[in-house]
């Protein structure tokens, strides 16, 4: 595992016992604020639930979508959350493979985020279904009349990709948690002890156990990396496989993956900053980590910006007037607003990260990451809605504005995400204790070694 690059301030270096204590402190002491936040999330989720119920009762008409814009906020938010889900596994797996030690203190949070984001994203394909009570038609099960789903449909690919991604991320996350659960088991007594004990599967950390553990961790990192890339590629094909001008493009897979990492990192920053402050983890999550994430943010922002430019280049280069008109309208038509918000948040704002001062100012980083999240939501809106609203047959051109139902459900999805995240922050170590201790151990052993 990574050792050399580890950079924890030398003096006041915590002991392994400190790590145990500090990292699991939030679990033992409850905060008043916490319950308020949890309550707010619960309320918003309930509101969304009501909205969805009404939609199921009355029909999709309560949403603002129409013909030709058959997909709206639901699919936009779906893609947004799938995007968010990408940072976690990326940080855990890819950075693990390339031995960037700085991931250690953030990968647990990132992975949790991934899982909750997928759980959120997964709701939307159901919510947007005209007859959700028949959702199981998509599942390949042996029905009495031997009807099967159509494996040529990108939507079915989606189901498999996201299902796999969720499962593998969960395994990956849980594997990382096992030693920490053991720590908690040994810290607590009574019901907590039994609970954590059960989930730790009786982990006792013999060296032999560790060897199996490390080996699987490596393999999971290995397969999770192509998986990350595949998932958002598949999601992008929901559109790229379509004939719609503005969708039908070969750059979509890399374009979407970059965007996903971009938004994912932004979300990690958005969450880690308040978390670190609330749980007093400054000792473990330092500006050094944020600086690295900021650099990653900058890099992906450049890729995304390049993709935006490339879309326009391709439209021009294709010499297809319909494609060209579609993109001209995207920037100047009814949806010019969202388009320029997207450009500003995703391309202009992150440029400030060229400066170390910005990267090291948590306030600035927080604001930027929030803006990027907004920008990325609009990116999906622009791609999906503007393309559909301005298609081949001019007489069918029609614009779309989201309805209250759609917005309620979208807000509810954020509440749902943070609800799970709050539960996680309260019940599980938000930083991988084992990994932190590993580094500290090596520091103590031969700290002067480099």
């Amino acid at each position, binding site marked *: 595992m990574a050792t050399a690059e580890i950079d924890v301030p030398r003096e006041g270096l915590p002991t392994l016992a400190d790590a145990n204590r500090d990292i699991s402190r939030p679990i033992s002491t409850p905060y008043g604020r916490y319950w308020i936040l949890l309550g707010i999330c619960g309320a918003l989720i309930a509101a969304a639930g009501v909205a969805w119920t009404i939609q199921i009762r*009355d*029909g*999709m*008409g309560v949403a*603002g*979508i*129409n*013909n*030709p*814009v*058959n*997909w709206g906020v639901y699919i936009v938010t779906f893609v947004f959350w799938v995007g968010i889900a990408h940072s976690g596994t990326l940080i855990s797996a890819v950075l693990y493979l390339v031995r960037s030690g700085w991931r250690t203190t953030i990968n647990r949070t990132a992975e949790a985020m991934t899982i909750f984001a997928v759980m959120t994203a997964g709701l939307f394909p159901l919510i*947007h*279904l*005209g*007859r*959700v009570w*028949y*959702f199981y*038609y*998509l599942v390949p099960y042996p029905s009495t009349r031997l*009807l*099967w*789903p*159509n494996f*040529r*449909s*990108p*939507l*079915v690919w989606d*189901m498999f990709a996201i299902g796999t991604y969720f499962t593998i991320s969960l395994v990956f996350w849980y594997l990382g948690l096992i030693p920490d659960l053991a720590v908690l088991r040994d810290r607590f007594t009574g019901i907590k002890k039994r609970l954590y004990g059960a989930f730790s599967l009786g982990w006792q950390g013999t060296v032999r156990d560790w060897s199996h553990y490390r080996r699987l961790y490596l393999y999971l990192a290995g397969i999770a990396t192509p998986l990350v890339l595949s998932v958002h590629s598949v999601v992008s094909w*929901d559109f790229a*496989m*379509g*004939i*719609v001008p503005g969708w039908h493009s070969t750059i979509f897979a890399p374009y979407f993956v970059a965007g996903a990492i971009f938004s994912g990192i932004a979300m990690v920053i958005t969450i880690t900053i308040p978390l670190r402050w609330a749980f007093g983890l400054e000792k473990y999550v330092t500006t050094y980590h944020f600086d690295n994430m900021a650099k990653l943010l900058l890099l992906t922002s450049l890729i995304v910006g390049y993709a935006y430019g490339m879309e326009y280049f391709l439209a021009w280069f294709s010499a297809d*007037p*319909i494609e*060209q*008109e579609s993109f*001209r*309208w995207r920037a*100047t*038509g*009814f949806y010019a607003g969202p388009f320029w918000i997207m450009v500003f948040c995703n391309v202009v704002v992150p440029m400030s990260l060229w400066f170390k001062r910005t990267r090291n100012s948590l306030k600035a980083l927080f604001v930027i990451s929030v803006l990027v999240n907004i920008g990325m939501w609009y990116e999906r809106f622009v791609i999906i809605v503007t393309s*559909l609203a*301005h*298609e*081949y*047959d*001019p*007489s*069918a*051109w*029609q*614009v779309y504005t989201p309805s209250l139902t759609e917005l309620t459900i979208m807000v509810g999805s954020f509440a749902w995400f943070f609800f799970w995240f709050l539960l996680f922050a309260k019940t599980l170590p938000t930083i991988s204790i084992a990994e932190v201790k590993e580094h500290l151990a090596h520091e103590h052993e031969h700290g002067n070694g480099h």
Partner: protein
Amino acid sequence: MNDGGVRHDGSGAAGPEPTGDGATRREFLKVLGVAGAGAAATACGPPDAGDKLISYLIPPEDIIPGTNVTYATVLTGAGPEPLGVHATVRDGRVIKLEGNPDSPNVGRLSALAHSALQDLYDPDRVPGPRRRTEAGLVEASWDEAIAATAAAVAAGRTVLLTPPVVGSAARFYQEWAEAVGARWVAWEPLGLEAQRTAQRIAFDRDEIPTYALERADRVVCFGADFLGTWLGPVELAGRFVSGRFVDHGVQAKYTFVGPRLSLSGLKADEWLPARTGSETLVALATAREVARRKADGRAARVEATLAPFTPEAVEEASGITAERIRDLAREIAGARSPLALPPGIAGQGVGATDAHLAVALLNYVSGAHGDTVRFDGATIRGRHVPYAAMAGLVRRMGAGEVETLIVAGSNPAYSMPASSGFAEALAAVPNVISLNPHLDETATAAGWVLPSHHELEAWGDALVRPGYMAIAQPVMQPVFDTRQREDVLLQMAAAAGSDAFDVEDYRSYFESVWRELHGRMYGAGPSFEEWWHENLSRGGGAVGPGFPSDPAPSLTAAAANYRFAAPGGEGDDLTLVTYPTVQFYDGRGANRPWMQEFPDAVTKAVWNAWVEIHPDTAEPLGVETGDLVEVRTEAGSVTAPAYVYRGIRVDTVAVPLGQGHTAYGRTAEGRGVNALHLLDGSADERSGALAFSGAAVTLTATGRSGKLVVMQGHDYDEDREISEIIHFDDAMAAVREHHVDLTALVEAAYDSDPQSPYRWGMTIDLNACTGCGACVTACYAENNLPVVGEDLCDQGREMSWMQIMRYFEEAEEGFQTVHFPTLCQQCGDAPCEPVCPVYAAYHTAEGLNGQIYNRCVGTRYCANNCPYKVRRFNWFTYERPYPLNLQLNPDVTVRSKGVMEKCTFCVQRINRAKLDAKAEGRLVADGEIQTACMQSCPTQAIVFGNLKDPASRVSRIAKGSRGYRMLDELNTRPAVTYLKSVTHAALPAGGHGPGDAHGATESEPAEHGAAAEHE
């Protein structure tokens, strides 16, 4: 067309003609059975078929469960012309109307005629006799109703007000009036009195001539909406298009003269935007020039009369340059068979008779008179009193000289301008008796409401062309507790003590009339019974020779020396044009959901009335489409959303008729505005015809924006291979060097299972399509399409499987219009299919894009991926209030919320035909299957058939020189081939549309208009 069900004449399933020869006594008795039930079912309420699947242990002969039975009958109330129909009856209820091939409409129907079903099943019909009390309308029994009304009639000074009728009913009303000492007044709001008057003056003949458009090679129309609402649009549209059959080398050049491009105007190759009311001058000036060139005997007779009307003289008043008039005259004079059509309703001003006379003179000098305008096969339309006479009636009513007014099938309280004071006068009439089926504006003022049968529930007949009488027979039991109108009158007369009629009901009355006709014709010939049965099963029969008359009666001296008003100067104020639309006509369509949701052929607006103004008029007012504007005349004012339209003169404002009902039913009430409120009731002094146009108006922007739902996102196809139009010469060149290989298959034919003998395909001739929308409504009727209402239309959630896009194409001068019917293209390489996760969308063995409603989960991906945007999603579950649901076609699933649906070429008809063919061990024959849209099309623009048969009609047409496929570059391999529209107008090199992409934003159409209006 018949679905291959049991034919009423029992002649079996063979042959495309649903009815005809060999009616037997048994067949006839079936009809009587139905009729008897109709007459006897006094308190039956809904028909049995309505609430039970199969309602009889032993079903009556004429109801074979699950099988369509077809009855021939005729609709006289479905627009300007009587239309012979075949009513498809399923399990005792009529579910579809299709044209009767034996009638002048040769098997075609109009949108309004299709919607007669929604009139029959209108939940707002009066369910039974009602009496008005202080407490409002209360139920009454027929007996007391008859007794009470008979007493009123017996009291004398009775007026019977009906629409114009031809056939036995005319005679009956006359005799009835005499019997009870009443006065019979027949009135028609959109009448032909001006033309009759002009005809009488010109040729001393007052019947309406036939217009042989099919023979004409040069057509000029002075305002008549002959493809939409004038005289006989279904018949005339057919004739017109056969005169423009490019592939046979003919295309009559067609010029439209008038201030506003109507549905008919949009088809014109050339538009002479004459100022409102100046059509007369243009016609006279043209006639003068033609006469000068012809210099024959006819010319000589009218030379003097026409002399003052030089093109220069009329230039200023008409706004048409002398040069253009000369060009027009030159072409008319040079034409083999020119034809000038008179002004219609929209062109009917205070000088209406003069206008008609002027056109008559033009036809006279051009040689059209007696050639393309013929009096030997005159068009039969019922006679009626002019508006002026109605005004007289109003005066007498007001003066209390009318004791009892019986309104039977007419709604003057709505269709008389408010300025006429009819409503007030009506209140002064002690006994008002309504025999209308609805609680319309007139019936709501009536003391007695005795609802009458719908046409489809009643007996009757109508003279539809000289010597040919169509028969109307009841095709089902009455939906409500109603009675045949004439029966009610008979019973009144009897109760009033008259013994003039020795018949027990009207059916036997008019059968006796037929006996008489038969006697007169054949004497001892074939027995009446046989003759009658045959006519009944065919829907009518010959009742005598045509008019034994001269096709070209000579011009009277009066006409030859007629004094036309001298050309005036230019008036600078805005003038008003009000016009009927195909969907509402005189307002009768307003309570039919299909008609409210019918996108107007010109504006594509739905569920409303609007004010058409020119961009240059709108711009200074800061008005855009949808903004509320107030139109004010001396008579009154209306406030409605504006529609900015380049097809109207800068100094003209147009408002459609037929909306703004205050009664009549849930769908009609409070929709739009009634343009009649703008008319001051001034009439043409010669004929007494109401002036529908010419009033001076002031137009003010209210600053408020209203709601006008326009079902057309953008007016230009932006050169995208969608609506194609080419110049006549190019078309002819292509036709000449193009050879159709009868052995070659159309490309799309390969897109079905190689084992299958079929690949269904369609061709749509854009040159023939007039945008009348009959196909759209036929589709609603055949495929159980729901009506979604104004708001959902506004959100782009209309459910029409077939839509007619209206695309403007730039021409060197002004613009051309292409009506572009879109429906599912049944692509061979369909983008919609592979994206469905559950195979709800798939490709059938016969090349259709199947859609499995039960399997659909509603991802809507298919709709996103359809480049033609013809898939429709059920955003809600749409209700049909009883008894509208009785019209549902049992062969087609009724879809519920969350399901995607679309056109599948009436697959239920395909399957039915295949079953029939299989039973007879053969393949489906070419032409055996007609989709609902194809069946209905008055111009036969749509042809459906099997592309795997290289010689089938559809294959041959698809291989024609004008064929192309929508958005072909996408390689979706559509099964629908469009034939390019053809025009005589010079087109810019570029072809269509203002090519620059800037044409393509939401707000632009108005700018287009402004940019392109440089006449």
